[in-house]
């Protein structure tokens, strides 16, 4: 395996981690105003991701950094091409981070409600826009011979891409509802279960439909990895729906986790060895070869990544272990 392929896989891993972890983060943020009705309830909802959301977000930063280091042309084309979409994502993430930090610093219902909506918008917008971006990448966008995106923002908001957006939005929300079910108790837990039950089937349907319409050549390019990922996605979604019905939410969460990771793997294996197909002609496709850094840089980065990634996984897993308990409305949570 060449280094370009290895880095393509590493970036797949980083985006899988991002979708898996930040996925429930966004979902919890989206559900905040609906599931948490009283201030204490909202506090618990926020605290369910409080210790981990910041670490989860670093997966995105790392994926972006890895893309820059390993495939600078991919990074340059994608980030300049999807300019306004990324600007909106940035604004949402700024709002979200500030909202988490600021909401409880002043004891006023109006103040807190305002930041709660900040968390909602800051979670909902990226949840939608990541799907839009992913669907556009899968379908191919107008990239010319100088590797430059020559389409417009409007082009990116096509019906296929919006279907992708709705799919990630629903999937993240369902994933978040299941996470909340596992982290809370009492009335919050009941409400999270209610959301999960309502969303399970529609989410499965929309996600399958979105994958099919966003990537029409899916079955032309089928390979072993894609078949496995496809089966994983279907089994994950179906399993989640099944276990939600039978009230086994831990397994259902495992199901949405598998579905999310499978979806990312499916996308990347569908693209491979391309990173951004061009809609203007195959000769303009960005691939892992014409977009990559030099062998030397890839070699150095490989040594560093293979040393650090296991370490990151280990201590991040540890924090999930430390904060594994359910949050309840016992006196400890009073403020």
């Amino acid at each position: 395996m060449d280094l370009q392929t290895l880095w393509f896989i590493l970036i797949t891993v980083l985006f899988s981690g991002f979708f898996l972890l930040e996925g429930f983060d966004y979902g919890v943020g989206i559900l905040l105003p609906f599931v948490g009705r009283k201030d204490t309830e909202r506090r618990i909802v926020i605290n369910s991701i409080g210790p981990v959301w910041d670490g989860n977000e670093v997966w995105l930063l790392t994926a972006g950094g890895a893309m820059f280091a390993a495939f600078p042309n991919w990074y340059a084309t994608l980030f300049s091409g999807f300019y306004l979409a990324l600007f909106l994502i940035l604004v949402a993430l700024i709002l979200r981070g500030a909202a988490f930090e600021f909401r409880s610093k002043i004891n006023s219902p109006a103040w807190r409600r305002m930041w709660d909506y900040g968390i909602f918008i800051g979670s909902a917008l990226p949840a939608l826009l990541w799907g839009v971006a992913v669907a556009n990448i899968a379908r191919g966008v107008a990239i010319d011979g100088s590797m430059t995106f020559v389409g417009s923002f409007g082009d990116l908001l096509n019906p296929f891409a919006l279907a992708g957006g709705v799919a990630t939005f629903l999937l993240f929300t369902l994933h978040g509802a299941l996470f909340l079910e596992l982290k809370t108790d009492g009335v919050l837990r009941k409400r999270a279960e209610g959301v999960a039950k309502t969303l399970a089937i529609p989410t499965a349907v929309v996600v399958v439909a979105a994958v099919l319409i966003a990537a029409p050549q899916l079955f032309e390019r089928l390979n072993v990895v894609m078949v496995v990922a496809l089966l994983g996605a279907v089994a994950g979604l179906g399993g989640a729906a099944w276990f939600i019905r039978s009230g086994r939410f831990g397994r259902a969460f495992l199901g949405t986790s598998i579905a999310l990771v499978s979806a990312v793997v499916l996308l990347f294996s569908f693209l491979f060895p391309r990173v951004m197909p061009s809609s203007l002609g195959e000769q303009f496709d960005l691939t892992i070869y014409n977009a990559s850094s030099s062998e030397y840089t890839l070699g150095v980065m490989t040594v560093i990544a293979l040393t650090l990634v296991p370490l990151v996984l280990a201590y991040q897993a540890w924090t999930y272990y430390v904060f594994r308990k359910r949050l309840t409305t016992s006196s400890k949570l009073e403020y």
Partner: protein
Amino acid sequence: MDVLDLARLQFGVTTVYHFFFVPLTLGLSIMIAGMQTMYVWKGNEHYKHMAKFWGKLFLINFAMGVVTGIVQEFQFGMNWSEYSRFVGDIFGAPLAIEALAAFFIESVFLGVWIFGWDKLGKRVHLASIWLVAFAANLSAYWILVANSFMQNPVGYQMAESGRAEMTDFFALITNPNVLLQWPHVVLGGLTTGAFFVLGISAYHLLRGRHPQMEMFRTSARIALIVGTVAVFATMGFGHAQGQRMADTQPMKLAAAEGLWESADPASLSLFQIGNEAERRPEAEVTIPSLLSFLTYNTPDGLVQGINQLQAQYEQQYGPGNYVPPAIWLTYWSFRAMVGAGAAMFVIGLLGIVFATRRTLEKRRWLLILAVPALFLPYIANTTGWLLTEMGRQPWIVQGMMRIEDAVSPNVTADMLLISLIGFTVIYGLLMIVDVYLLWKYARAESGSSEATASDLPELGRVY
């Protein structure tokens, strides 16, 4: 304004804003870790209150540093795609390593620290804040490795494809530029943290109403020592950077000194009204030989001037303008930075003298001075970056790539305008909220010592 101007303005606005928050994170994290160490070591609750009081302010500041940092990473691809293609092979690596080696540790263990007060053993919990402090400062190193390549490119070759490629990773991470720049920035951060603690402590010592005056007495003493040592060392590394600049970026040095014509010995300009159109000073006050002395440690030595360097660069790189725009900004930024540093050093030194004589609280004038001195490090940090980045122009990578070749070709002025206005508005609003919250929590006297004690285990819940 055209695309280039808007992209530059946006980079300037977002970077300066980001760097309002970063230095305090760098320095204050170390100070809090130190205070909490005293608590764990001595078992004295007094230090625990201190760690928690300053910890709250730290967190209000930290969030802003993080969210604005994401913009920085994305911006290279969004606005400067040609730059990203040209140096991605070299520049991307430190950014990726920053995320992987430092930023993960910082954000994961900050979560552990905030929410772990009563879930973890004291030592493990103490380790978490040290990890945050360590990672924050490590993070600065990797970012400065990237920036140092722009100031002083090393460890690369020009590839056939026309882009720069890394040939020596070790050279990149031991760039002589970063070996001076990193300590300068980290010590500047410590200075920022110390003068932040000093200013707020002085405020409470003056008011004398807070139920925990002892906490501010100790905090002020710690801050005076840390701040004075740190600002002195910062100036030392800054001076060393200036001497290096004479070799690697003489144009930046000439701009910072307003030196239009080469001179040997060169005199130091104290005050100058320059004529940038005609490239000469209009009026100035100078001290003979001092610039040569500062540059070479001897009273004579040639310091190159802007006009001679311009002529030399035209020979070297072809016709064009190699004079940084807005020399006045570079010139006055340099003076503001040095002036702010010197003022902090004097305040710190006097404070130490009075503190050792146990008369600090009687010298109210010094305490009154220490409150606004809280802003001095912010002036120094901001003007320091203006000097570093403005002085490098028109180069984005010194001697390799000019700024106008770096901008994204497909990003329009409208898009830039939308994002520039968007960032400016949201940054402005958040700044107001942030400063308001810092002010509120810095002044907070929320009740007895008991309230402060039970207040912060709750920190996690108040998130």
